[in-house]
């Protein structure tokens, strides 16, 4: 026999009351847990994916679109920019590193990115199997692409135009998988990497079919004595006036870059620079409204459950006045009664928040299992944050707070009056 058993039996004696209190609190806590887990993971992914990229330079359009397209690969390109113009930016002394990207095609909605090795290095990617792409039309694929699209080493596939399945297929040329990357827990897991020349090869045909596009055939450029390679794509001569890329990812040499480069780029009529940090902050402030409304809703649920626990304890205490008095007559001290009531409130909220956290993780696990997008974004229910301890401790405090007034009443029980006053 101890106080926990006593309190447990009191909770068991009123199953409906106990259940509704636990469910109310659990719902509130679950919403908070889901928001916490989802938001934190999303934020981590976003900062991870944008790490090392200070500026994205691309065609004019929405800066947010530029970021979503070129860093997170979830939006369409704003257009193309001339390679020569990109080179001018890349040669700026404030630029430490410039990585060209050529986008446009996909396979089973996994984006094909024409780039160079520096892009894979940005995410510290390593190979799980095979080798990095070397020749045109060689591809190295991300871990998720291999797992979800079912591509293996040596597989050949035709890409589709755009980012959705069922677009125009480039049947004339097929990519060949030469390597599979180990999971990086970044956007790279969902990408198919190749060189920029491959993208040009694909669209050369494409351009011939559609007369309105003005792509020129790719020549095999033979290095000659006078050949000066482009700083972005070594196989092409510097200052090539025809070749285009989608964007260039820039890393600054010094903080001065952050002040000068965006202005420099934006002043050129055909180019636009967007800062990932700024745009993602803007994105979060837009999303934040929805998150705050949900949070507010969760807090309302928690306050209601607190109130419900208070009322339940307060009412049950009226029925238990005799229990209190009789326990005192058997030797229980005032403080022991106080503790037993506090324990009851604390136990209720502890149960509630434990169920709530489990529910939150469960829902997210279910979501990750059922919705491919969540899986692609790398969001799981299996991570635990220290904030969850704060939620547990916080709800325990809530329980103690709700139980405080009833507990003080129990403390003040006048045993003689209760026992005599039948």
């Amino acid at each position, binding site marked *: 026999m101890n106080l926990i058993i006593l309190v447990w039996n009191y909770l068991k004696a009123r199953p409906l009351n106990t259940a509704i209190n636990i469910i109310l609190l659990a719902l509130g806590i679950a919403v908070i847990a889901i928001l916490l887990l989802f938001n934190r993971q999303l934020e981590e992914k976003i900062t991870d994916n944008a790490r090392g990229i200070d500026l994205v330079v691309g065609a004019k359009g929405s800066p947010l679109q530029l970021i979503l397209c070129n860093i997170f690969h979830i939006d369409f390109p704003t257009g193309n920019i001339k390679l020569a113009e990109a080179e001018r930016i890349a040669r700026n002394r404030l630029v430490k590193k410039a990585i060209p990207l050529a986008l446009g095609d996909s396979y089973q909605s996994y984006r094909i990115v024409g780039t160079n090795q520096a892009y894979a290095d940005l995410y510290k990617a390593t190979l799980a199997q095979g080798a990095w792409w070397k020749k045109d039309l060689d591809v190295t694929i991300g871990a998720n692409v291999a797992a979800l699209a079912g591509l293996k080493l040596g597989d050949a596939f035709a890409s589709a135009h755009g980012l959705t399945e069922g677009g125009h297929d480039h049947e004339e040329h097929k990519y060949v998988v030469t390597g599979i990357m180990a999971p990086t827990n970044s956007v790279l897991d969902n990408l198919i990497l190749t060189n920029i020349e491959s993208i040009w090869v694909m669209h050369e045909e494409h351009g011939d079919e559609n007369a309105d596009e003005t792509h020129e055939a790719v020549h095999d450029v033979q290095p000659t004595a006078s050949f000066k390679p482009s700083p972005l794509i070594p196989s092409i001569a510097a200052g090539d006036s025809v070749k285009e890329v989608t964007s260039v990812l820039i890393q600054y040499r010094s903080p001065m870059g952050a002040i000068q480069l965006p202005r420099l780029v934006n002043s050129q009529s055909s180019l636009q620079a967007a800062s990932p940090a700024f745009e993602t902050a803007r994105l979060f402030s837009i999303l934040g409204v929805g998150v705050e409304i949900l949070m507010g809703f969760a807090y309302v649920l928690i306050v209601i459950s607190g109130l419900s626990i208070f009322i339940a304890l307060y009412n049950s205490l009226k029925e238990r006045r005799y*229990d209190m008095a009789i326990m005192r*007559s*058997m030797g229980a001290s005032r403080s022991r009664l106080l503790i037993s009531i506090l324990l009851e409130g604390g136990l209720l909220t502890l149960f509630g928040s434990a169920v709530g956290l489990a529910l939150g993780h469960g829902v997210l696990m279910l979501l990750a299992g059922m919705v491919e997008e969540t899986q692609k974004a790398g969001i799981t229910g299996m991570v635990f944050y220290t904030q969850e301890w704060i939620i547990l401790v916080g709800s325990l405090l809530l329980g103690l707070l709700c139980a405080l007034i009833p507990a003080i009443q129990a403390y003040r029980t006048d045993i003689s009056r209760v026992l005599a006053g039948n």
Partner: protein
Amino acid sequence: MITVSNLSFNYTTSAAIRFPEIEVNAGEHCLLLGESGSGKTTLLHLMGGLLRGYSGSVKLDNTELSQLSETALDRFRGRHVGFVFQKNHLISALSVRKNLAMSPYLAGLPVDQQRIVQVLDDLGLEGKADHRVTELSHGQAQRVAIARAVLNKPSIIFADEPTSALDDTNCDRVIRLLIDAASQNNATLVVATHDHRLKNKITRQIQLR
């Protein structure tokens, strides 16, 4: 065992109630008689340490109750005193066994399951240990209350109107059980009542006016 001298108690508004000198020896059984309002319950609560703030002297086992701190008094009460009230006041959320176990637990004594079974047997409650108290009849509940009062082998058992709501047969049975239980445990028994049916059961009688 119980010594009451010069005792009076003040409820805040009404005048002080004065109580006669009382001396009850160890193992003695005694009846506290008086009409409603004569202060029987008050005296019983004072002697049982349920009510404090009296003037005069109440000694149990040579301990002056007013000299104990509140917590010490709680502890003393748990170990030396057993109570039986008119209403049984069993804790309805607990089983019979757990109701009984509360008694040693709250008194800070080890819980002896064998003793619980033995006391239940003595009171004709074999096999009822794991029943819910709400499943018991009134008479059975009363016996559980008596079992709870004697479980810790207290030196004194106070009973407040244990029979006033019972018919003659049950009245007879309950007082017999109380007397037997007290004798078996060598406990002093004090029964406060206005029930005249008890007058021929216990010879030592104290009349309050």
